[in-house]
């Protein structure tokens, strides 16, 4: 085979730029064109006008929600019609579905935000009084105004219950997750299956279990401890599952590198696996805590309602924030309902703070460090390098002599 191309060398054809320049401008593919905006405005205006005519003018229909729903459907029809002037079936369908997806997202997010802000705004009335956080309901009756009584007892109860639950859940949950990932084997698989099954346990059944296994048998009285046990039964599977996922994400070559350097299994877990997964584990625990704090029914069954501040988890009923909400709003008195919303707002704020904490501490994949962590690691490794270099220079000096 001879190389034919050697004959044609020296003739490179440059593209004719004049042809390119004559072609029409490239249409941008993703941008929403001006006509599309006009289509949207047009269909919104016409559907609104039509609905307005129907409601109150041509027919005796009248209902705000009916108006909105009818307007929405009419908008879809109008938008489809207007789109069909210029576009084909595929494009029309695409536009209608886009509208539907937008509305689903906006409806859902605004509905959820509405639930939160409704609670916060109705809670303001009670939250405005400082005594709400410094007094209990011991000396306040349902008819007392908002500047008497507060939810100190519920805050104390929640704190004590969640502390006990966490003291049980963190070592057990993370220990089990480590067992599932680092030891493994058939038994570990079985434990994982059972822990997964337990995430399906309805919270009220967990409460019922503690009530009949511990309280009715006389092992533990109705108390904060019993409530904490029920919350633990609820939280444990959640924490195990979340930490299991996080530990599984730790890159295997990190473990192998550590083992290859001669570290024992225990040192690998303690110095490599757990620090790598730290932020994820913190997130798992905090999300579990957020769920545990919000549980109402287990506390209702195992501890019960009280209006007295109780610091002793081993004796006497100890109320928690969600149960206090539930108890307040059962009353028909407006002040009690205001207190209920205030308590709910407090609970919501606690959960928000916990969630923000989880995002700030975790939310990063294993091995990704914060800037500060990165600097610390750099400093450490610079120190190591320094140390090794001085050792080397010393040994080379010794060799020479």
């Amino acid at each position, binding site marked *: 085979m001879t190389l034919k191309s050697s004959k044609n060398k020296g003739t490179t054809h440059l593209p004719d730029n004049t042809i390119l320049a004559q072609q029409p401008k490239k249409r941008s593919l993703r941008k929403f064109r001006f006509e599309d905006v006009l289509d949207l405005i047009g269909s919104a205006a016409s559907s609104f006008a039509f609905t307005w005519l129907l409601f109150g003018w041509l027919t005796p229909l009248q*209902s705000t929600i*009916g108006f909105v729903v009818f307007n929405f459907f009419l908008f879809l029809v109008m938008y489809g019609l207007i789109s069909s002037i210029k576009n084909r079936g595929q*494009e029309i*369908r*695409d536009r209608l*579905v*886009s509208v*539907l*997806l937008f509305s*689903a997202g906006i409806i*859902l*997010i605004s509905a*959820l*935000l509405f*639930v*939160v802000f*409704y*609670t916060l705004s*109705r809670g303001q009335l009670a939250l405005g009084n400082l005594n709400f956080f410094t007094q209990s309901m011991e000396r306040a009756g349902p008819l007392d105004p908002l500047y008497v009584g507060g939810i100190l007892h519920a805050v104390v109860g929640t704190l004590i219950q969640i502390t006990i639950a966490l003291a049980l859940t963190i070592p*057990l949950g993370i*220990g089990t997750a*480590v*067992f*599932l990932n*680092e030891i493994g084997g058939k038994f570990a698989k*079985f434990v994982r299956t*059972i822990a*997964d099954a*337990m*995430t*399906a*346990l*309805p919270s*009220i*059944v*967990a409460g*019922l279990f503690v*009530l*009949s296994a511990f309280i*009715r048998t006389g092992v533990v009285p109705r108390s904060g401890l019993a409530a904490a046990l029920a919350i633990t039964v609820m939280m444990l599977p959640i924490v195990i599952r979340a930490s299991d996922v996080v530990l599984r994400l730790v890159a295997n070559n990190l473990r192998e590198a550590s083992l290859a350097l001669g570290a*024992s*299994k*225990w040192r690998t877990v303690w110095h490599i696996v757990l620090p790598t997964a730290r932020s994820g584990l913190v997130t798992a625990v905090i*999300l579990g805590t957020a769920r545990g704090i*919000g549980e*109402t*029914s287990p506390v*209702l*069954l195992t501890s019960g309602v009280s209006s007295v501040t109780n610091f002793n988890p081993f004796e006497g009923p100890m109320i928690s924030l*969600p149960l206090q*909400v*539930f108890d307040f*709003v059962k009353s028909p008195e407006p002040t009690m*309902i205001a207190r209920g919303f205030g308590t*709910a707002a407090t*609970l*919501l704020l606690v959960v928000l703070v*916990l*969630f923000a904490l989880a*995002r700030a501490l975790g939310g990063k994949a294993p091995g990704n460090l914060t800037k500060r962590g990165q600097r610390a690691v750099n400093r450490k490794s610079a120190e190591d390098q320094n140390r090794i270099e001085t050792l080397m220079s010393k040994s080379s000096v010794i060799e020479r002599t």
Partner: protein
Amino acid sequence: MAKKIRSTSLRDPETPDVDFAEKRQLVQVSDFADKTFAGVARSGGIITLAIMAAVGIFLALRAQAALETQGWNFLTETAWTPENGKFGIAAVLFGTVTIAIIALFVSVPLGLGTALFISEVLPERIKGFAISLVDLMAAVPSVVFGIWGVFFLQANIIPISYWVSSTFGFIPFLAVTDGSGNPLTDPSAFTSSAVIAGFVVGLMVVPTQTSVMREAFSQTPLGEKEGALALGATRWGMIRAVVLPFGRGGIIGGTMLGLGRALGETIAVYMIISPIFEINPQILKSGTNSVSSLIALRYGEASDNGLSALMAAGLVLFLITLVINFTASSIVANSRSGAESN
């Protein structure tokens, strides 16, 4: 020659034949710390297993006493009077399932739409924010949804319920009638209904469903999406041809996880409904019940027999949610989108 065939030809035939049959054994020497670690981790696993097993076994044992007295009647009896020895979960189970199905009617379209909206429509800049927002909503305590349902939704939904029942009253389950079949018009007939409870529970489970579905959609291979777009598909065409089939496991799994939570929800339902012990197929009419609110209602007055009757009801609920959860997780794990994540 025979030697050469037996041993693979990587070795130089000139080198003396080393006996490879005797592979060096790798022995992992565990020191004391290692053994302790393994022991502690294993005992953690054992304790966890013991707690979980204790819950299950205890429930089963205590429930057995009640189930033995009732037999299969337990599933068909509507009344709940353990003191007379006559109780069954037909009515409460019917209510539980009704509320959960209504919840799914609210949550699945919203959740699916939002999951697609976040993963396919929203620009990258706000995507992270929307994801955090939805995840945060999954952590909102159910009692907050409950008071919203009681104080806001209840009052605002009655005119709509009334309108629906008077317009579509010819459909049996949308009618609201008294015992003799005459339509009811009094607003109090529309409060505390299964629809209101279902709506609130639906809103409560939507965030969970959305994040499961979105997770599945976000794993769609970029190459396949770009391929569809390059062949001229519109965005919806691409979603229908690539994203939805790929995320089917996530859609089914998310829906069922939401169903499991909806069935087990206690406090929001308990706050909204007015409990009755008969099957009420009219979902807009006041009065329904659920297994978990039955437990919350009766735990205080229950004798030992009553308690084991409640245990039996709780056991049935647990078994149902268990089956649903396992089906969901196996569907997610066996689907294309879940293959890597699990």
